[in-house]
């Protein structure tokens, strides 16, 4: 297991390398730089040149890339041009928001999705099955930003049950955190709920049709035991795979949800930094997002091991 973990961690290095190289490629492509933002619309050419020299952004991109990697090895992600803090601080203060949102959405999507899927599989071909699957498809077909605004109007204004936006850290007020996170996390989860429900249904059906389940049933084992103890356990592997992929999708989708619900998360930080051309923050933010993604996938791989021992040595 330890060896497996080390190998997985090592394989993360090229992933992060690709992400950072892509970011440099983008920096090289994107016109303009942060000097316009600092200098404002009224800055003179000399002022701009001075700012560029001061920040070192007048150097060629290769040179900047090399010095960035050099600093990275010393654990230094640099300093934001505009936010008045280090990149690490800027990203870390945003991370709780994005992690809350993504994690909660993952929980929603997995629990509701799996339950819907099981229900549909157990009552195969009934009206329940049909309804659940249509609901899953509808979840897949709605643009989440529109759905989010509708939810805000419904639950925030008409019913007045939940706040319309903003973020309360869980460390400050757990109830407040839950209230601010409920709508955004649900909105973010809705698409993936559909994906997971459909996946669960088909892999459950697969298992339910296999001989040993039929045997178990024939031997008089009661419904829920068969379903949760035998069938679900075996159906878990494909479901976990989907959950792993889902995390990546949720991290990407969080960007939109943060915008709709005005949450100060990493996604908005990166969007804002792209618009302001605050490259150290873009670079650092994307790197941290990629780290989260890689970490979750390592966890997913380890979960395979738990549910399906054959997989463990396979990788």
């Amino acid at each position, binding site marked *: 297991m330890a060896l497996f973990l080390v190998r997985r961690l090592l394989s993360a290095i090229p992933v992060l390398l690709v992400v950072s190289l*892509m970011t440099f490629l983008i920096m090289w492509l994107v016109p303009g730089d942060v000097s316009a933002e600092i200098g404002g619309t009224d800055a003179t050419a000399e002022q701009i040149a001075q700012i560029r020299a001061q920040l070192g952004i007048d150097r060629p991109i290769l040179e900047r890339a090399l010095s960035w990697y050099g600093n990275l090895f010393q654990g230094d992600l640099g300093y934001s041009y505009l936010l008045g803090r280090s990149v690490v601080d800027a990203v870390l203060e945003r991370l709780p928001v994005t992690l809350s949102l993504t994690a909660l959405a993952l929980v929603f999507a997995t629990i509701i999705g799996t339950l819907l899927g099981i229900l549909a599989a157990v009552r195969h071909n009934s009206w329940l099955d049909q309804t659940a699957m249509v609901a899953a498809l509808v979840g*897949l077909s709605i643009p989440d930003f529109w759905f989010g605004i509708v939810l805000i109007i419904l639950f925030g204004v008409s019913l007045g049950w939940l706040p319309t936006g903003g973020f309360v850290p869980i460390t400050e007020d757990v109830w407040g955190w839950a209230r601010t996170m409920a709508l955004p996390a649900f909105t973010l989860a809705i698409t993936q709920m559909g994906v997971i429900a459909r996946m669960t249904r*088909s892999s459950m059906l697969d298992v339910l049709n296999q001989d040993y389940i039929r045997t178990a049933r024939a031997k008089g084992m009661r419904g829920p035991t068969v379903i949760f103890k035998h069938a679900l356990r075996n159906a878990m592997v494909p479901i976990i795979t989907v959950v792993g992929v889902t995390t990546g999708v949720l991290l990407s989708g969080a960007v939109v949800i943060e915008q709709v619900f005005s949450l100060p998360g990493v996604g908005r930080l990166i969007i804002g930094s792209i618009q302001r051309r605050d490259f150290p923050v873009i670079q650092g933010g994307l790197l941290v997002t990629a780290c989260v993604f890689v970490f979750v996938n390592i966890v997913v791989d380890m979960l395979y091991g738990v549910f399906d021992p054959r997989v463990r040595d396979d990788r």
Partner: protein
Amino acid sequence: MTAEIETLPEDGGSLRRQMRKARWRAFGVFLKRLVAHRSFLIGAIILVLFSAVALFADLLAPYAPNRNNYRFILMPPSAEFWFGTDGYGRDILSRVIYGTRVSLFIGVTVVLFTGILGTLLGTLASYVSWLDALIMRGLDGLMAFPGVLLAIALASALGPSEITVIIALTVTFTPRTARVVRAGVLVVKGMQYVEAAQAVGAGHARIIFRYILANALSPLIVQLTFVFAVSIIAEAILSFLGVGPPPPAPSLGNIIADGRTYIQEAWWIAVFPGLAIAFAVLGLNLMGDGLRDIIDPRQRNHR
């Protein structure tokens, strides 16, 4: 599809002929199953309708999609404007009709590029062992790059356009597609008939194209159906972030994005193109499900 070939004659030409025949036979059975499959059929009909609307937009749209009219701003649905009008006084129905064109174009192009790139990379990875690790780690890296942020960065570099959307989506979906192809090829590669073809001295290129790819194709097609569906939704999301197809040309996504500010005052702007998207995505998903059911025999009886 390939189970029919069990005994292999010595003569290569005869083998080929027999395989071709077997393949055609299999294809006929496959088609029959498709048509008999309820959800595939419904999905296919929806997609055909959708494509027809896109194709005949000029004939179907009652007004020019970009005609502004200050006197008819934010009009609710009526006999004159079935889907109402937007903040420019433009007819939503006409814009939705033309918008399907852009959405369809983006979907088809992304499917095409993703299919080509995914197949190329997936096959290379599975066939050339020293490239495998390199390609797969590279693709992992792309997967770890949030697609939405990539689109925003690209839009800053190239300006928002259909092209930007297509590039961003292609980069986002290619890794997963390549994985599907690679997995498919790895399974097929070890099979008897491929080894047999190698034994009779068929070249690498020939083996890849005729035998391996042909058989990894099924999971690829299923995957691409879903890529198609997700592309149509993704175009809307990118429009929301201001990096979708630029004005004034309508896309289903940018109509919704425009209308989101008026959800309470003019619900019709976002709802009708939203329904069109839902319709298309539904159709594609049904088709994908159908294809998967038919191709993957284990699941054949589930629906």
